[in-house]
């Protein structure tokens, strides 16, 4: 291999020019459609997910309007049921999970010091499939075919007998889309973390955010198959007359709930665990010290990931399962308070010994601690069988899970956007509007959702499109609805701030916060090849401990896309590996897959005929071309 061009001895400018030749995407539309750069795809993913957040938020406002006074007529029952189903499905499947994975897609390769995510074409494919699933759901909603059976789609209501038309099928197929994309991302993240870390980044030097995304990816891989099984069985019941869930023919109604919640509860942690990583990242940077108890934090993350699979039954305490078995799930559900508590104590210990800088990301962390800990407390309450028989399916639960999902995940996410905005765009996000926005979101959120605890205790059930004036709920509902305007104003300010800062924000430079992790060791935004020279890591906070000069590895080829494969435990270099070129095939494969999945809502034969174009695109995707990427 004497003709190889290596980076050894090349000057920075010559090296960058060489890297640009092999890593940069083509210009124009083709480049946009064919790129496999994890940053381009991650950005796209994040922007799309926030777009769905806006749409879901508008639905929430419509619901709050409808509930602001008794017997309101803004939404008729049919529309309301579509709206709350869309809100839940959209927020869980099209916003929360994808945005967390997207943050991983963008930042994990940078944080572990590699040039692209593993399986970059699969990653590109996952984005297109996700986008198609989102368009399917929202297109159906605009055509008055939006699902109306709740984001949980309990049978028999969602079954063939009680949901005529295609609404429930659209819900079930949207699940298939988002699960395919989530699984594809998860696989790429696991391999990136295990095999592409910078030399010297042993497992115990991995940033906590990377640990969090690793655990999340494993939870995705283990949880998603349950819901794919469930939604496929539902489609079969509806389309070809199987009887998985039909008790009259020996099927079981509760089977659906077991399968759904075996996925559905871990789903919450798929959303929350990345947020733990974000909070840890932000706290460390603004306290200028590593998070206290690294090992404890990692064990807590893994512990939450494992426990997540042992507590799905607490969604089913009122279904009439044996009480002793339910008490076991009370114990396992409450037990998750232990690793969660441990993390909170470690963060507090980190703050205790430091003088934290209260920049906007840090303000969001404070809002997170206030809100999430409260949501954790109500979580302990709904874990108790007797308490849950009163609280379940009431507005108390609506309050609880918005506290843990918005307080526990969205607040850290907004903080993380502020934190990483300079890396994403090269510009700082406005700090003064940031403080206002944080205050509005925090106050608006708590004023909107805290009263719902009381409404639930006063007997208000979930998923009702209206209520009667003789019930004492009007006052608190009106209060919550007015507060929701405050919350919406906060989000509006956030989006405006991001929009404006992306154009006119102060230039950021490589490392504006003085942060310790590798994503800050390259330009903002990073070039397509991420790192001109692969960094070598000697500690868990490489940019703090290296005193400004990072050691780098040399010897990678410059005439093809190449990255370094390292060992799982110690990240010692093992091989140079080619990284795939841009390709249009992932997009074509995603289109073929989408056509098959949508078509199969209408006829089972779509699975037969629709798989032909998929096979063609996959053959195109994997066709051996003798290009350098296929050299070993």
């Amino acid at each position, binding site marked *: 291999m004497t003709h190889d061009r290596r980076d050894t001895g090349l000057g920075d400018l010559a090296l960058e020019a060489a890297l640009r030749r092999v890593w940069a995407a083509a210009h124009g539309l083709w480049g946009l459609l064919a790129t496999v750069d994890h940053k381009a795809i991650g950005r796209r993913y994040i922007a799309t997910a926030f777009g769905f957040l806006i749409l879901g938020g508008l639905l929430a406002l419509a619901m709050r309007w409808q509930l602001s006074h008794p017997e309101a007529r803004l939404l008729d029952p*049919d529309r309301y049921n579509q709206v709350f189903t869309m809100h839940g499905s959209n927020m869980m499947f099209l916003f929360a999970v994808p945005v967390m994975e997207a943050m991983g897609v963008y930042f994990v390769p940078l944080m572990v010091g590699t040039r692209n995510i593993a399986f970059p074409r699969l990653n590109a494919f996952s984005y297109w499939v996700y986008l198609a699933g989102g368009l399917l759901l929202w297109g159906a909603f605009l055509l008055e075919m939006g699902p109306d059976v709740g984001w949980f789609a309990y049978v028999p209501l969602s079954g063939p007998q009680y949901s005529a038309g295609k609404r429930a099928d659209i819900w079930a197929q949207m699940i298939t889309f988002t699960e395919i994309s989530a699984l594809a991302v998860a696989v790429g993240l696991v391999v990136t973390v295990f095999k592409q870390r910078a030399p010297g980044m042993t497992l115990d030097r991995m940033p906590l955010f990377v640990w969090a995304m690793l655990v999340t990816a494993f939870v995705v891989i283990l949880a998603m198959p349950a819901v794919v099984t469930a939604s496929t069985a539902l489609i079969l019941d509806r389309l070809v007359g199987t009887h998985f869930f039909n008790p009259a023919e020996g099927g079981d109604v509760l089977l659906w709930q077991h399968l759904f919640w075996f996925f559905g509860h871990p789903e919450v942690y798929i959303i929350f665990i990345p947020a733990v990583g974000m909070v840890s990242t932000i706290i460390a940077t603004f306290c200028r010290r590593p998070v206290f108890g690294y090992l404890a934090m990692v064990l807590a993350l893994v512990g939450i990931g494992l426990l997540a699979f042992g507590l799905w039954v607490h969604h089913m305490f009122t279904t009439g399962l044996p009480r002793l078995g339910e008490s076991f799930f009370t114990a396992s559900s409450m037990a998750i308070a232990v690793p969660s508590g441990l993390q909170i*104590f470690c963060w507090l210990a980190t703050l205790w010994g430091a003088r934290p800088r209260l920049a906007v990301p840090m303000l969001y962390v404070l809002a997170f601690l206030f809100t999430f800990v409260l949501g954790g407390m109500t979580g302990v309450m709904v874990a108790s069988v007797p308490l849950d028989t009163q609280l379940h399916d009431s507005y108390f639960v609506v309050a609880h899970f918005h506290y843990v999902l918005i307080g526990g995940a969205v607040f850290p996410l907004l903080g993380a956007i502020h934190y990483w905005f300079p890396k994403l765009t090269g510009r700082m996000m406005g700090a003064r509007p940031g403080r206002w926005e944080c205050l509005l979101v925090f106050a608006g959120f708590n004023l909107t959702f805290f009263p719902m605890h009381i409404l639930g205790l006063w007997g208000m059930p979930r998923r009702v499109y209206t209520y009667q004036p003789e019930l004492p709920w009007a006052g608190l509902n009106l209060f919550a609805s007015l507060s929701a305007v405050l919350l919406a104003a906060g989000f509006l300010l956030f989006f405006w701030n991001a929009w404006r800062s992306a154009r006119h924000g102060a230039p950021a430079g490589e490392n504006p916060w003085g942060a310790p992790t590798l994503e800050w060791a390259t330009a903002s935004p990073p070039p397509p090849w991420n790192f001109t020279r692969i960094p070598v890591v000697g500690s868990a906070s490489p940019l703090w401990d290296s005193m400004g000069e990072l050691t780098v590895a040399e010897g990678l080829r410059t005439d093809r896309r190449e990255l370094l494969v390292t060992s799982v435990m110690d990240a010692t270099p093992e091989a140079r590996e080619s990284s795939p070129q841009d390709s249009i095939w992932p997009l074509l494969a995603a289109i073929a897959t989408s056509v098959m999945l949508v078509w199969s809502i209408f006829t089972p034969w779509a699975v037969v005929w629709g798989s032909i174009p998929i096979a063609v695109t996959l053959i195109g995707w994997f066709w051996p071309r003798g290009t350098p990427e296929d050299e070993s």
Partner: protein
Amino acid sequence: MTGGWQSALAPGGSSADAILRLFWPTVALLGLIWLAVLLVLAAALLRRARPEAPRRAGAVVGAATAGTVLVVIGLTLASYLVTRPISAAADAPLIVQLRGLQWWWQATYPEEGEASGFVTANELHLPLGRPVRLELSAEDVIHSFWVPNLAGKQDMIPGRDNALTFTPTVPGVYRAQCAEFCGLQHARMALLVVVEPPEEFARWRAVQAAPATAEALAAEGRQVFERQPCGACHTVRGTGAAGRTGPDLTHLASRGTLAAGLLPMTRGALAAWIADPQTLKPGNNMPLVPLSADELQALTAWLASLR
């Protein structure tokens, strides 16, 4: 602040009472922990930073985690201790079969000793101080029976038999509402639970078990009812109407509400309901049966007499 006749905070039954006695101490304990976390957070932000010994911090974090473990164990045990009495079987309970349908409730009081059995809808009467065992089932989709003043909720699931046992301890009228999303009119599926002294309950039961009164049977509205297709879905005992898919109307006017808690039981509401059920509760299974003004007048007068 207790929220009235559909509130978990104003117990009128043994289960709701036991749950509330677990609820408030749990809220107090968890609220204190939340406040403590926030106080430590505030102190960490306000104090002058000085590097602490990592070993001491480790000990504090370890102690706090151990404390969490203890709290979790304590709450699990407390929860278990309350679970047992609220799920225990009772001696000689009153048995009522309650069936959930889209979007109303069918109650069957089986024969018991001298008292003969009967079917009614959308209203339960329970004797004060006697345990009741509600045998819960569902006709179509999943519903959930929740009368927060008396007990926690219990789902009604097609293909499964569930039961809920509790003892009403405070007389009164309580409101129950379906707590599992069951389709278009999930919001309009309520039921009244009347807890009354045993002698009043016995009187009510005797009236309900009897067929419609003789005067009622002689009235003109009865002919309207029988001429029109009403009897295809509804039963009025004593007439030829014996439909089973809609609520039993034999003693319709004795109930407090109409259409599963939607309207008060008045003649005007009856007329409005019959004239246009799909506007008042869109999607429900009651069809619009065209009637002349005279027919409607006679029919509502007759229905209002079914006490």
